[in-house]
């Protein structure tokens, strides 16, 4: 078996060290080595978005990033979105608006939606649809997801005001 590389990175604000093979994806490292199974594998080729994480301030599909590339980077996964004080407004909106059914795509949608609302507090419906087109959902038809993101945008603006 190939020798392993030591990777030091920051995940959800905490320093994490792990050993991985060069061929292992960041998704595989998060799930199988670090034990953060909230990011999901739906396709392993970057087309479903279920493994979406924040990677040094931009969203990536973690199945298309190698684990060794995480060295020195700041990563936020679905496990880092809520705080001890409670759920993030996007998570709360997803619950109140029934924006999930099976829930397998939900972590990716929430991470992607947070990235959008962090930089654009009041996106149009079309902007939301365009931004989330990288994330596949087969259960909801997207209607309630788009509405939940609109709802979260409103509650986040109210919190800021």
């Amino acid at each position, binding site marked *: 078996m190939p020798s392993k590389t030591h990777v030091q990175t920051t995940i959800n604000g905490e320093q994490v060290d792990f050993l991985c093979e060069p061929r292992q994806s960041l998704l595989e490292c998060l799930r199988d080595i670090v034990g953060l199974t909230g990011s999901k594998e739906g396709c392993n080729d970057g087309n479903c978005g279920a493994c979406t994480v924040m990677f040094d301030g931009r969203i990536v599909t973690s199945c298309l990033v190698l684990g060794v590339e995480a060295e020195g980077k700041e990563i936020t996964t679905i496990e880092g979105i809520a705080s001890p004080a409670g759920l993030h407004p996007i998570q709360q909106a997803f619950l109140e608006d*029934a924006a999930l059914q099976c829930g397998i795509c939900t972590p990716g949608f929430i991470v992607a939606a947070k990235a959008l609302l962090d930089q654009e507090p009041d996106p149009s419906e079309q902007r939301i649809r365009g931004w989330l087109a990288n994330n596949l959902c*087969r259960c909801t038809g997207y209607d309630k997801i788009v509405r939940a993101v609109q709802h979260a945008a409103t509650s986040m603006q109210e919190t800021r005001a």
Partner: protein
Amino acid sequence: MTTTEYEPNIVLSTTEYDVVGTRPIRPDGADKVTGRALYGADVNPTGLIHGKILRSPHAHARIKSIDTSKAEAHPGVLAVVTAEDLPGTKLGGTVDYGEGKQDLAYLRGNVMAGDKVLYAGHAVAGVAAANPHVAEEALGLIEVEYELLPPVLKAPDSMGGGAPVLLEHLRTEELGERTDRAGNIATHFRHTLGDLEEGFKDADVVVEREFNTQTVHQGYIEPQNVTALWNNDGRLHIWTSSQGPFEVRGAVASALDIPVSQVKVTPMEIGGGFGGKFPLYHDPIAALLSKKSGHPVKIVMTRKEVFEGTGPTPGSNMKIKMGATSNGKITAAHAYLAFEAGAFPGSPVGAAAMCVFAPYDISNAVIDGYDVLVNKPKSAAYRAPGATQAAFAAETVVDELAGKLGIDPIEFRLMNAAKEGARRADGVVHPRIGLVETLVALRDHPHWKAPLEGPNRGRGVAVGYWVNGSGPSACTISVNADGTINLTEGSADIGGTRASVSMQAAEVLGIRAEDVRPTVTDTDNIGYTSGTGGSSVTFKTGRTAHDAAQNVKEQMIARAATIWEISPDTVELDKGVFHSRTDPELKMTFSELAEQLNDTGGPIMGRSAFSPTGVGAAYAGCIADVEVDPDTGKVDVLRFTIAQDAGKAIHPSYVEGQMQGGAVQGIGWGLNEEYFYNTAGELTNGSFLDYRMPTSLDLPMIDTVIVEVPNPGHPFGVRGVGEVNIVPPPPALANAIHAAVGVRMYQLPMNPAAVMEALRQQK
């Protein structure tokens, strides 16, 4: 794309309750928005190793030899299995795996190929190794010698003489009788009602068309997965995300020839199924690898394996002939339905036959159904299996009839709508159904009356029917000292059924939905519960939850009577308060009584376990506005409204979600999705990129109307809501395309190439 104004979602409620019909947050919600919910691939028992499956690259070939010695010698490999490791079997015994029965020989033959591979993607061997990469390396070291055979990929090609035969021992079942005819037609059946010839004589207008649809996939985002531990005590523990944990237990036990009591299945959270997560695939392989290696073995399919190695829903060749009088009465209908079963018998053509003319009261009808083998994966259920293909054909012909007669398409459907007492062509008499109410809801919706201006734009309408299902179910409830209850059920929760089941128990006991803690448990800890399919869970497990709550209520009333030293006949539970009918001073809330249980005789548990009857069938209809690009053939959906009879919506948000999700799957099926095979029978678009399901950017909002015509067979009037919504979108889109550009579409998908070809032929 144009974004229109949206109508608010509508609920046409007929009966109000305290909990039923409200929209509480789902009990499993927090886990699912924080990444804490554990799905099948998240299982990690101690000592876990990983399995991979070697699959046939050929659509049809004889296996001359398999040499696994190099793979077994590869460093890190712990076990290798082939079909030789499965128990041998002869044709004859059947296995119920949920949404269908299958011959045990075929079940095992699909798990791993024996002497022949029957489709590209057919499993041939399994390898377990320390990690998935090593297992994958080892797959490349297995040497399989194939003798290639010609494949056959379409039902019409497969039915004729001279087609390559898939299963040498198969004999056609013809009108209920086994024949000695070899070939690829597994079954031909016929339903007859009235006198078809006389019916067509009475018709002033007759339309006859031929339709073809392609193989499509359910497209759940979570790939199939299994973790198996064959323990040293002989017990086999399976963790999997399946629609039917008990069906998995039964099928695994049958495939491995061990008693069901030796198998425990723990249902993990499931990332979508839509019918596709019933059949058995790699579970016995993981079990055999575990037995050989002594480790728990996890297998997670790649997306390519999901497309190639699991059951999609079949392509079809259909001919529909319908006749009507000049004043709009449908007098006769004939359907010819040939469905691709895939590599083994068992397409949903039987269900298609139940549904094809079910929206209409037709006195004279004949339906011929054919189940046909082709060199594609064994087909599986997909949301109202068979009904969507059938409705695409029948509803296109109905629309053409209405057009020829100059009758509004909703009025034409209303004039012929099936009502209580009407007979389906397959003999079943409709109980109380809500088709008329659903059509009226569409007719009265602002969308139907809204102007649609601009070139190349059109509006279409269609309806669909689904039978819905039930089955054995079990539920237990225990009362907590703080007045909450724990509810245990065996129904895998794919889309919010913990909520819809819990709410029915809460309604009975007069407590809040939030006071119910539901658990979906494993096969060791609840009575047999048939799988999450046929839109059955809110009906059947809702019913056992209702009855278990009634059982709790009776015991609580008895306990209150004991404490008060009065007769239980005089105690009532009303909105969560126990009170005496004879002494107004005697009152206790549910939680006040719950707190006293341990000191007044002990804990209280309720239970219910049976097979609820009284299933209510479902109708849905939709209105679609499209714009066709005449230069590219691309169809954009401008606006979409769906109405559906829910009987009673327990949690309206999740009913709307089913309607919207089903509608969008129907839109994807209608406009774009298909398995694309080359002539060698290799799937050439086995990825999400190339299969191309709808994204958020392809769609408008999906406006909903929940119609409530209560099902008399359920205490709250529930009909199943999960499936029928996928049925009407493809024909509604076809009818909208006709309204937009004047061409009729007789094939799915109606992708740009198909629409351009239709426009070219029009010129």
